[in-house]
């Protein structure tokens, strides 16, 4: 079977313009692009469905257009409507909350890109020589006070975290 060049060209234009708009940062343009790409895709289904013909009704004697892809397209049209309504609501929400119609870069992702150091604790840690220390029944005088140890450790890790943040910040600024 061969295709109608006119339909193909329309589809190519719709896809091209649609994708071009989809890649924008303005949310309204993204929605426009989405609508165009939706239309283009329906057109694609229409083109590959074969030649045009009479409407598909039982008892139609003339050659009819293929009804199955039409059902697909009908489904697609309504879904596109649902999704574009959702996008519209998103646009409104974004405008109301941030007064912006723009898809911004994700700040968390950007922060990730600026980090230079790893998150794992990779320093060797010495264990204690006791689980009881000064709490033991007949503790020796040199026994370790575990509670103080834990406190110190906590402060150390807090300090390390602060240092890390400062480092990240410095690198980010640079």
């Amino acid at each position, binding site marked *: *079977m*061969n*295709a*109608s*060049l*006119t339909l193909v*060209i*329309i589809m190519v*234009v719709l*896809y*091209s*313009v649609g*994708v*071009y708009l989809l890649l924008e*940062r*303005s949310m309204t*343009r993204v929605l*426009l692009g989405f*609508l*165009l790409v939706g*239309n*283009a895709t329906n*057109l*694609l289904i229409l083109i590959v469905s074969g030649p*045009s013909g*009479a409407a*598909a*009704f*039982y*008892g139609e004697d003339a050659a009819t257009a293929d*009804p*199955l892809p039409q*059902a697909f397209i*009908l*489904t697609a*049209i*309504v879904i596109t*409507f649902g*999704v*574009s*309504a*959702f996008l519209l*609501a998103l646009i409104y929400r974004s405008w109301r909350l941030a007064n912006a*119609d723009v*898809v911004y870069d*994700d*700040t968390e992702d950007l922060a990730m*890109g600026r*980090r230079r150091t790893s998150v*794992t604790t990779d320093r060797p840690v010495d*264990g204690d*020589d006791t*689980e009881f*220390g000064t709490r*033991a*029944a*007949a*503790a020796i005088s040199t026994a370790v006070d575990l509670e103080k140890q*834990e406190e110190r450790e906590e402060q150390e*890790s807090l300090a390390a975290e602060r240092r890390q943040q400062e480092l990240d910040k410095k690198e980010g600024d640079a």
Partner: protein
Amino acid sequence: MIVLLAAFALVSLVIPALTRRLHTRVFFVTALIPAAAFIYTLLQTPAVLADTPPTESIPWISQLNLDLSFRVDTLSWLLALVVTGVGTLVMLYCIKYFAASEEGLGRFAAVFLAFTGTMYGLVIADNVYLLFILWEATTVFSFLLIGHNTGRLASRIAAMQALIVTTAGGLVMLVGLVMLAERTGTASLARLIDLAPEGTAVTIAIMLILVGALSKSAIVPFQFWLPSAMAAPTPVSAYLHAAAMVQAGIYLIARLAPGFAQTPGWQPLLLGLGVFTMLVGGWRALTQVDLKLLLAYGTVSQLGFLLTVVSFGTRTAALAGVALLLAHALFKAALFLVVGLIDHRVGTRDLTKLSGLGREAPFLTTIAVIATASMAGIPFTAGFVAKESVLASFIESASAGSALGWIAIVGVAVGSTLTVVYSARFVWGAFASKNGVETVRPLHENVWFLSSPAILAASSLVLAPFFGTVGTVLEGYSTQFVSEGYDYSLKLWHGFDAAFFISAATLLIGLALFWARTQVFALQSLVPAIVDSNKLYRSTLRTLDRVALRVTATTQRGSLPFYLTVILLVMVGSVGSTLALNRSWPDSIRLFDSAGQLAIGAVMIVAALALVAAKKRFQAAVLVGVVGYGMAALFAFHGAPDIALTQVLVETVTLIAFVLVLRRLPARLGKAHGSSRRVLRAAVGLSVGLLMGIVAIVALGARSADPISASLPDLAYEIGHGRNVVNVVLVDIRGWDTLGELSVIVAAATGVASLVFLRSRTDNLPRVSEARARGTIRARLKPSREIVSSEYVPGVQDPSTRNAWLLAGRKLAPENRSILLEVVIRLLFHPLIVLSLYLLFAGHNLPGGGFAAGLVAGLALAGRYLAGGRYELGAAAPFDAGRILGVGLVLAAGTATVPLLLGADALTSTFFETTIPLLGHVEFSTSTIFDIGVYLVVIGMVLDVLRSLGAEIDRQREESSESLESGSTI
């Protein structure tokens, strides 16, 4: 057995609650279960001896060969006794070890019990997948146990390290197990070993399994996790890191050895690693000052020893291996418990801080000395008997000319010497009186607290004379190996044979070295550490972390256009390359189907291109509308009236929705963002467009068979009882698709509502009160002149008093009212609703159907809203949109599922026809109910859009302008 395992699981669940009441006495309860399992296993002894292993099996996932099957043969029997027996004793020990105030005691007790149960299941499991599941479960529980002290960094890191190392090994093992089970077609361990397949694939599978076993048993290069895991409470170390978990790897190797010891690479690899681990562990143990670490490195060494023996593959070695396994579990658990006692008593495990404990704690010292004697292999202990038999088995092989036998003898002899040295050091370090070190304070010894290590140590001594009897049971395992004609049996005393002389030599040299320890340590400090696996592990993790960070930062830029570009380019690349390889190009192409197509196409292309340059939002909305209506025309030309109709309606509703939102946004489309990289975007767009064009041409050209839809018209009429094929396809033949679509619509509508209504979705549309509405209607029914006459001034129409053509007309601000619109809507609303009903019911045979009908009804509502505002919408549709959506979905889903209840396939339609007087012939198909569902869902969707994007936005605007006027901030 399965009942016992269930008891382990269930009791673990209630332990945390019990702990709140019983405190440390909860360990009495937990000890009951492993004790029961211990006794039960003892009762199985006759069956095990008679070589009729008790089995139990419950099918679980038969498709995967995964069954809950358990089997207690000699090896499992021994391990089960060790696991449950030592488990019971360690739990009893915990009663005194922990204080009632211990943090997380309930969790600890529960996890400990669960671990014991898992371990018991692991050693009696017969299914390889079940074995793997339990294997990984022990890893997870050990993670929780090692990390018991959540406040300390060391314990968290150690727990993580043990988890990562053993899980990684376990996953590798899983691959091997799957390969093995797939190759042999059975997942039963016993069957696998009977079959003992060979070949390259089997060798690879076995090597993979060995990785898991070696990592679990802390064999070089995985040995580093075990000493780190000493951050765990000492009872955990006594159980997991001496008797139970670390022996799991040894157990698995012992389990596989009868079938696979002849696998290429098995013997040299395991012997080499075993001897090396034994030496490395012993060497490191020499210099430890923490008694627990000393024991931990000692355990690494002993695990290497065990590996050397159980993997050796001869009958005598197998017997010696299991004997050593038993002896090791007894003395090592006892020694860990002793260390725990010391720590509990004096508050340190550092042997440089301990002095005079031997004099102060004679019972503890006795226990420790007996257990250490067994560890060092001093005559007439269990350890001695086991070591004798090990040496004897190696001597057998060596004298038969096996080089491996010689290596094993030398390795074990040197390793044993080191064992003697660190054993002596342990006793000396813990109990001797040292000059210049403060002597420990006297303290009464608690008999109960001592009992667990005492029982373990005593059994090292008491069992030794009975090892002959034990041996006859254990031969049930070793006879699985081919006999080489030797008839070795375990005995307390074999006389002054070669093995004894080697033993004696190791003892004497060991003690001599300990005597000269100052010089030995000085010498040792000169030898650098060969490989620091711990460092390697940390740097591996660090590198992994950095790579992950780099990859994430490079690929996850946080930019939506970037992601889309990547996705589209991948599509162009992959689909494009497939097209390039395509050989079936159509030989001709039509220019156009009709002149109308050409004209419409031109308009659409112009509109689309203008869209790129559109500067204003409304302009863009109109242009995209032009494209949409053009689509409808194309559909109509194609012979698709249904989609043409739907497209027109959808386009209209979309346009309305667009306008409703856009009125709140600035008129001009933002220019600042998105104008960058125009050329790139244009290139991507163009390449996608062209690609899709080629796809369309090729796809159509590739169609050569008759489409299945050729038979659809007949099907539609005969089965679906409808003439409109497209409609019958939607509501009957492919009803599932439509049902899925309806769900999408409901989700989208709900999404719209929840994005706009910030708090609640319930219907809060303002309504004109019933009474007023009725009044208005009654008033309107009177001749209109009467109402107006009093204020009627010809020529001057005051909008506020103007007659209302709609229910809520007067609620609208006068300047927003349009009399023309009100009149038109007033006239059109009811005809539109009737039209929608007509489309709904006629759709089965004529163009129309639920989608189009719903959209028409939605448009009627939209008209009411546009003309009369949100009050008018509330009056026109005085119901909750969510409810309409729900009812619609229920109707559609009900039509789909009710036939199932009646025994037919889902979505089967039923057809009725009858002749009713006056109306004539009436036909009804149940698929019409489905279509009504579609109709309601579409109405609900449109209504939700109107309520959210229309009415609610109105309200929010009024609210904000009111608050601005009253001077308050939003």
